């Protein structure tokens, strides 16, 4: 079943084009990583999906128009829009009570269970918690909601590495199953690379890359080329070439693996490296710069 379907999604703020005709299709049970620079349109896209902003074009989330049916949609959709949006005055116990009160699909016992594994006290106010604890609390609230789509917009920004790891571990182990869909945006791509099933790059309001992680692993190869093979490597039309510790590393899209093995050690590139290769090329094209 299709969870999100968008055709020609557009959004402008005055003269700034935030979304420039986005086509998007997310199936049930996927974990999609939406990667882009600041101002690339990630948050605008998510806001449109969550019914927080108006848009032009076609967009259906779980079969509903998010702008006109936001309230109904929010029974099946959850989001963590940024760290630190929990009201600072609220007590942990009040947050649990309130969500239990307004959300028909919230399982309070489950949330209590998640919180029991942390050091968060029920009578603490959010303002008394550390940033990492606030993220834990928000995740506990969200994971206890039996939602079909979970949207995470920079959920771990500013958290230390331990909290970040815990965050994604509990998301994967305690929450995710094949009936749920997760969309996550983050700048810390190395944190999410191993949990994604799908990947999308967004740049200047357009989707510049969209593939599943299986495709990703079979299509993209990174080779640290032996010094004598640089000419041969360039002949295979790499997407990108960079220097690291005196060795040239080439990134290939859909090249023959046997040919690559001759050049040097081939491996799957990190999302960050692919992103730089793809978006670097695209911003070059758009500005008319030759690289």
């Amino acid at each position, binding site marked *: 079943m299709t969870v999100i379907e968008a055709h020609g999604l557009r959004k402008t703020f005055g003269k700034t084009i935030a979304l420039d005709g986005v086509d998007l299709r997310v199936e049930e049970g996927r974990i999609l990583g939406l990667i882009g620079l600041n101002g690339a349109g990630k948050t605008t896209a998510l806001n449109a999906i*969550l019914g*927080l*902003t*108006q848009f032009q074009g076609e967009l259906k989330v779980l079969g509903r128009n998010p702008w006109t049916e*936001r*309230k*109904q949609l*929010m*029974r099946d959709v*959850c*989001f*963590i*829009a*940024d760290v*630190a*949006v*929990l*009201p*600072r*005055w*609220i*007590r942990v116990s*009040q947050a649990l*009570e*309130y*969500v239990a*009160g*307004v*959300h*028909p699909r919230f399982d309070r016992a489950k949330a209590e269970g998640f919180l029991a594994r942390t050091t968060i006290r029920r009578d603490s106010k959010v303002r008394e918690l550390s940033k990492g604890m606030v993220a834990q609390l*928000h995740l506990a609230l969200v994971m206890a909601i039996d939602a079909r789509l979970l949207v995470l917009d920079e959920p771990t920004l500013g958290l230390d590495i331990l909290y970040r790891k815990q965050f994604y571990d509990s998301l994967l182990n305690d929450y995710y199953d094949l009936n749920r869909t997760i969309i996550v945006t983050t700048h810390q791509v190395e944190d999410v690379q191993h949990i994604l099933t799908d990947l999308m790059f967004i740049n200047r309001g357009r989707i510049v890359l969209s593939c599943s992680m299986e495709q990703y692993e079979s299509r993209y190869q990174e080779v640290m080329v032996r010094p004598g093979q640089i000419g041969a490597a360039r002949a295979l039309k790499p997407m990108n070439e960079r220097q690291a510790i005196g060795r040239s590393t080439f990134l290939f899209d859909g090249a023959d693996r046997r040919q690559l093995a001759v050049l040097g050690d081939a491996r799957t590139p990190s999302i960050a490296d692919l992103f730089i290769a793809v978006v670097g090329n695209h911003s070059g094209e758009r500005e008319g710069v030759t690289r």
Partner: protein
Amino acid sequence: MNTQSNAMPEVPLEAQVVTNAAVAATRPLYWSIRRELWEDRSIYFAPLAIASLFMVGFLIRTIQQMPKMRAALADPVNQRGAIHMPFHIAAFMLLVTAFFTGAFYCLDALHGERRDRSVLFWKSLPVSDLTTVLAKVSIPLVVLPLITFAIIVATQFVLFLFSTAIALGNGLSAATLWAQLPLWKMWLSLLCALVASALWYAPIYGWLLLVSSYVRRATFLWAVLPLFAICVVEKIALNTLSFANLLKFRLIGWYTQTFVQLVPGGVPPADPLTQITPWKFLSTPELWIGLAVTAVLLAIAIRIRRYREPI
């Protein structure tokens, strides 16, 4: 027999579905109001603080001015006025407090959640903008009047006990005092005042909520300056004060339309209910115009909340 037993469970089931639907519709509203009370504790602390201050003031005055009071209580003409005075002052002070508490609450209600970005959390839950804004406006229109009523009744009851003690200490019989203090009727009249003032002030609260939903900063200035500017411009351009008079009537009208005014220095009547003129209040066009304006202002505020993002 058979048909009956088959039909039996259907009725409660249907009723259950209806009740569930009603519960589902009112639950978000109920919890939204509760969360307002968690967040803004001035809603009950402000009236409680004023009531306590009043009691302290009353005690000090009683001790200091005992001979004067004794004289007033002995004079049959001024007796009722002297007995009633503290009761009226307490009620008046708490009504004014309720108005200011409600006004400042409204001014922050839709601004604060954008300022601290928590609006993104509230919007992530299945609570509509309509429910949210209705919950917020029900604080000054319903919750504050109820709290104020309870606190005034409690304050006046304590006053009643004190007055009884003072009367007994000054050789006045408790029966005389109690005959002069028809508490139940006073409280009924108070209830009228609270309902009338809430309905009358509704457009003020609506305006403040609208400003709160719209502006990015300086909510108080945005709420007050435009009104002040209209008064000034009208005075300069036309040399009239109709807008200023309209504002003045909006502030005091509920009282002048609901209660018979005492002449200055006059003695309150034995039965406070004879002072109430509900029909005059209900037939004041400004009441209904005000309520219609409130509906429009709230509709705009609901719409704005939909579009607004954190500041």
